[in-house]
């Protein structure tokens, strides 16, 4: 265990830099950032960008793990820069872009393929116009409460070993959304079987998941997509047994 840094200590931020339009290859640059108690990795990166090197690019916005902008790879782990205390990391911090995504610049990755996968999961309810004031059993609410708190940060898809090698696999967050909407009774009748059919696809669906649970390990909202995928598998099998669509 490394000793906790104290006020004024220099923390070495080893930051991945790459501008595809100018650089032939990526490099790490080390920046010395003065430590102050409570400092997060995002605070450190912003000190670099505002004071030391204005050309550094990163995404961030809310700074309290609700917007999902700042997912990066810190010392080899997918995490939100805003939630990671520097004091938990020692005196050198390595920051890289999320693995398995294209790099647009420095720490900024192209999340559009992730968004396409999210959209392919139909992450929306088809409202039932006949149900003006839906009643929802609190137990049902409890089933989709956790996956509803997804912030679309893409950390889970970046960490998933299957998603990394199989581009057709929808990945953890999208499948957690399939589950989230498949257990919501406010959905228009008839849509739920279609969701299960989609999740049943051999190329992109739940059967690609090998239950490694890397997704659950990195999720900043403590969602467990692996568990939701397992539940989807059970729902699909039940639907097959019933001979449903």
């Amino acid at each position: 265990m490394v000793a906790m840094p104290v006020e004024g200590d220099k923390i070495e931020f080893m930051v991945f830099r790459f501008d595809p339009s100018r650089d032939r290859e990526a490099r790490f640059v080390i920046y010395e950032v003065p430590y102050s108690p409570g400092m997060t990795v995002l605070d450190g990166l912003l000190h670099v960008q505002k004071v030391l090197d204005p050309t550094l690019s990163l995404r961030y916005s809310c700074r309290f793990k609700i917007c999902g902008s700042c997912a990066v790879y810190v010392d080899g782990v997918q995490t939100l820069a805003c939630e990671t205390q520097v004091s938990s990391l020692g005196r050198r911090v390595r920051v890289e872009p999320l693995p398995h995504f294209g790099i647009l610049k420095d720490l900024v990755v192209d999340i559009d393929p992730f968004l396409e996968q999210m959209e392919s999961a139909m992450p929306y309810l088809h409202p039932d116009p006949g149900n003006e004031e839906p009643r929802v059993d609190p137990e049902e609410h409890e089933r989709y409460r956790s996956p509803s708190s997804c912030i679309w940060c893409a950390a889970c898809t970046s960490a998933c070993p299957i998603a990394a090698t199989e581009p057709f696999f929808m990945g953890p967050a999208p499948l957690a959304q399939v589950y989230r909407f498949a257990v919501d009774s406010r959905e228009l009748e008839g849509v739920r079987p279609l969701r299960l059919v989609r999740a049943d696809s051999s190329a992109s669906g739940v059967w690609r998941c090998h239950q490694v649970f890397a997704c659950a390990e990195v999720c900043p909202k403590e969602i467990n997509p692996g568990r939701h995928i397992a539940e989807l598998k059970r729902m699909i099998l039940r639907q097959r047994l019933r001979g449903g669509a």
Partner: protein
Amino acid sequence: MERHEILVVGGGLAGLRAAIEAKVRGRDVAVLGIVYPFRSHSVAAQGGINAVLGNVDPTDSVERHAFDTVKGADFLADQEAVELFCRDAPARVLELDRWGCPFSRLPDGRIAQRPFGGAAFPRTCYAADQTGHAVMHTVYQQALRLGVEFHNELAALRLAMDGGGVRGVAALNVRTGELEAFAAGAVIVATGGLGRIYSRTTNSHHSMGYGMAMAYWAGAPLMDMEFVQFHPTTLYGTNILVTEGARGEGGFLLNSEGERFMERYAPDRMELAPRDIVARSIQTEILEGRGFEGEYVHLDISHLGEETIMERLPQIWDLALSFAGVDAREEPIPVQPGQHYAMGGVETDADGRTRVKGLYAAGECACVSVHGANRLGGNSLLDCVVFGARAGAAASEDVPGKASGGEDAVKAAMKEAEERIDSLHEKAGKGGYLNPYGIIGEMQGAMWDCVGVYRDGELLSRGVSRIRALREEYRSRAGVPDGPEAFNLSLVDSLMLEGMLEVALTVAEGALRRTESRGSHYRTDHPGRDDEGWLRHTLAFPSPEGPLFEDKPVGVTRWQPEERVY
């Protein structure tokens, strides 16, 4: 040049609700945002959204919601607009429920409602303590389902204007560094708040007030800018929001003597008095030496028990642990006031129309006004969905089919935007230029020190001259070296700073001008409310020298101003 019938600038809750309304009315609509819609600051709202559903107390009424809102506003709200706002509320909230919003439920399956500051009944619907996230994602999901077109990571820089009004937008594509031109029959500005003009704020890094400035430059006056809400409970050290729901669920505020000090300030409503009153009470405790380390007081929720905390306030528990190292099940949370919300904004009618043809505004960047001098908790998410929908409807009605023309105006806006960028690069090329972040830091400090919770003429004059001086410095010396094209953050922030300084000046000068205390605007040199002199809105118009002010009467219909006791 891309053309749409309706262009929405800002992909947060108000913008997307407007876009959905336009889309279902068959309009060609696109949304342009500086971040992806689901990254918008709307996700940061925690405590809830108000609507009279009567699920917990059936004796609640729309009239009572309206009265609470007007009294909370210290009578500066326009009462007709408030009544309409509260009437629309149940339909908008039930619509969110049909769209799949994960609201917390009562045992009988109806939407749960909790007590909130300044409200006579438990009428705040919530999704644990992440209501903004729940509502924002629900609305984004429906926008996806309906096929709304998005242009993400574009910063709108200038509105295109000609004799026919607003004709489009010139925007910087943050990904490519290229300027992009958009022509439109109507532009709805929904860019959110201005929190980042202050050093202590709950707002996200992208709440920069730029949309307000852009509308102001186009000739739409900014209204009631001096009314800035300071949230009573932000986490000491980071000013991360700690929801009013923590007090709604029964949390206590305690000073260093262990006393529930709200007894002295609002004996009836205690911790659930409106935010302006609670924020001042906390500030007074701190100033009079009854705070901790001269900086904060305690918010104690430990007596609520683990079950309630983990079910209704899980995010607060997590945030206190992550960012203050405090386990709220066992220890009190250190809190202090911080900037939270702009009651003021682009003057609109109740349908989002501004004085400029083709220009609409909705959400926090707009001022109808339903929040007057102080917004009630739970009314801001509601504002976004009610007035977002109304602005989307109005723009859909006003735009005459496939609009054409205005290309020259858009080209002129593009040229102006290009000149701004060139001038920043040029100054950096000369040497002796100023890094924008120094100016931003000084502006934030000046606004907090001089235009904060407690104000007086001397402080405010100092604030005005500091902001004016910074504006001069920005104009003459701020520069950005020629750098990478993609994601050039210092270029984007330097451009945004122009708007931030502009709105900061309307806040500071508006506050100096208003010689009374009302709602969030408290002047120690004019401690009383002065209905004779100041029961009126402030309008700020742009001029090269700075804002020019006018007054506008307040719409008082049902409720005459009375003394505000809680």
